[in-house]
């Protein structure tokens, strides 16, 4: 019997798609495999070992820059998510008012400008402020990260709000709930998955940033990615593979969590 004619088939597409998935994962797989290489150089495979994970774990600079990365990401993601939630509440579920489009454009602006340009702009401004105030702490990095995290936190929260039914809030108001109580007991619990998704996106985006951090940081303020960038340029040992592998596992963990949080919303 002849096979049914499949209208969706396109010649060669399946093999190209498989090739594409293979190409996407080949480099990552290589990177991970070589993290377990028991050799001083990357070149030759000598046997399985966890040696380079120990080396990375005992490298004070790696630990220090990882902690700094997490601190910045945690504070920036939190600030960005709070302000993005407020902005999302202010820009959805209303008839268009003057300034609404302006707000959209403004909030999404960091997505439209190449990172290198923002980085240079911040370098210029912050180096001035550093001279004027004498302050050179983590505040600059946190401010910069918060700004570019805002649109990433804003998008899923806004999407969630737009799919939410206003009737429940109206009902709460009919039952004499104050605005604040309605928000706390009705809007917020419904909005929560969106906020969580926004928070995680912002966290990952901050954790991943190289370019802006590289330009804004003062001496001794390396984050994990900028530390790695410096090491890669100097020639590499499997230690970088080990750090990358650990980072990769963490990212996959967060993405998996994000995947499930955002899937639940139906």
């Amino acid at each position: 019997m002849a096979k049914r004619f499949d209208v969706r088939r396109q010649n060669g597409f399946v093999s190209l798609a498989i090739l594409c998935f293979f190409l996407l994962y080949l480099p990552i797989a290589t990177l991970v495999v070589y993290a377990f290489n028991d050799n001083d150089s990357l070149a030759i495979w000598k046997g399985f070992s966890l040696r380079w994970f120990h080396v990375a774990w005992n490298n004070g600079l790696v630990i220090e820059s990882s902690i700094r990365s997490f601190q910045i990401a945690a504070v920036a993601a939190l600030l960005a998510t709070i302000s993005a939630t407020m902005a999302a509440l202010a820009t959805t579920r209303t008839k268009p008012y003057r300034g609404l489009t302006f707000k959209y454009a403004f909030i999404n602006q960091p997505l439209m400008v190449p990172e290198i340009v923002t980085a240079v702009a911040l370098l210029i401004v912050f180096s001035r402020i550093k001279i004027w105030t004498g302050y050179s702490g983590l505040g600059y990095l946190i401010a910069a990260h918060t700004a570019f995290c805002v649109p990433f936190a804003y998008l899923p929260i806004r999407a969630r709000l737009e799919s939410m039914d206003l009737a429940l809030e109206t009902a709460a108001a009919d039952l004499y709930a104050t605005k604040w109580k309605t928000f706390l007991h009705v809007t917020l619990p419904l909005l929560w998955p969106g906020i969580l998704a926004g928070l995680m996106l912002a966290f990952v985006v901050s954790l991943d940033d190289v370019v802006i951090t590289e330009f804004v940081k003062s001496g001794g303020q390396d984050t994990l990615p900028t530390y790695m960038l410096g090491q890669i340029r100097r020639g590499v040992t499997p230690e970088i593979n080990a750090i990358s592998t650990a980072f990769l596992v963490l990212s996959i963990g967060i993405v998996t969590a994000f995947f499930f949080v955002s899937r639940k919303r139906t």
Partner: protein
Amino acid sequence: MATAKEIADKAERDDIRSRWLLSAPALLIVFLAALGPLLIVVVYSFLTPGNYGDVKWQFSTDAWVSVLFERDVFDDTLSLATAYLSIFWRSVSLSLATTVLTLILGFPTAYFIATRPDHRRDIWLFLITIPFWTNLLIRTFAMQEVLRNDGIINSALKLLGITDHPVQLMYTNFAVLAGMVYVFLPLMVLPLYASMEKIDFRLVEAGYDLYATRFEVLRRIIIPLVTPGIVAGSILVFIPSLGAYVTPRVLGGGTNLMIGNLIELQFGQGRNWPLGASLSITLMAIVMVALLFYVRNTTRSDGAHG
């Protein structure tokens, strides 16, 4: 006494005012740490470079002139600054090549995902999302593992007996291109998938009923239906490619600069901040043109369907 209309108007005004207050923190932080500094870059591009970096507060258009021209040291005549122009040209052509290659690879991939049974699409999408959320630096470094002289490609070539000397792949335009295609591929697949998911396959069936070949169906039904996805994906790939900094720096070495690296040089060794500022604005202008092109295209196609 206030009429109903006045009360309604006042309620609306109050509502809009509280909406401005609510959005104020987000607007403020974006203004202070993203948009505002961009305006200062414009100012800096019209100043004179300081001796040790930074600027002197003296108006000058030298930076802008030297984006395009070179002043001859002896007779003060201007000629085209071929060094910078060639870097701009390399950036634009590498970004276009990246866009085309990601489209060629991404189109069948997105189509493949969109034509899986419903319950299996999520898992394929997830496989695209993982590299997308993996640190860009790590992905670039992973590409280095593949391309270096003792990396997979060269080992494979040696094993197959094709060459006995490693082929130099790192620090070439090819390495930068391969890296950018690799890094930006998910940005092409995701919007393509979003528009392919919505294809009504009854149209495709109708095409076959009218004796179309598979290629005709692809060219005259599927591609026109997913054009918004193609445009969105191309913009999403083209813009970050143009401003790429990490990938050319890691894979391209010192000689295969792109605009991003040229800008960084002005703030590092070059010590010419105004030139760096004017190069940044030039880059942003090119990006804005690309975005305008995108906006015009999307509004037009919306109009055609709606």
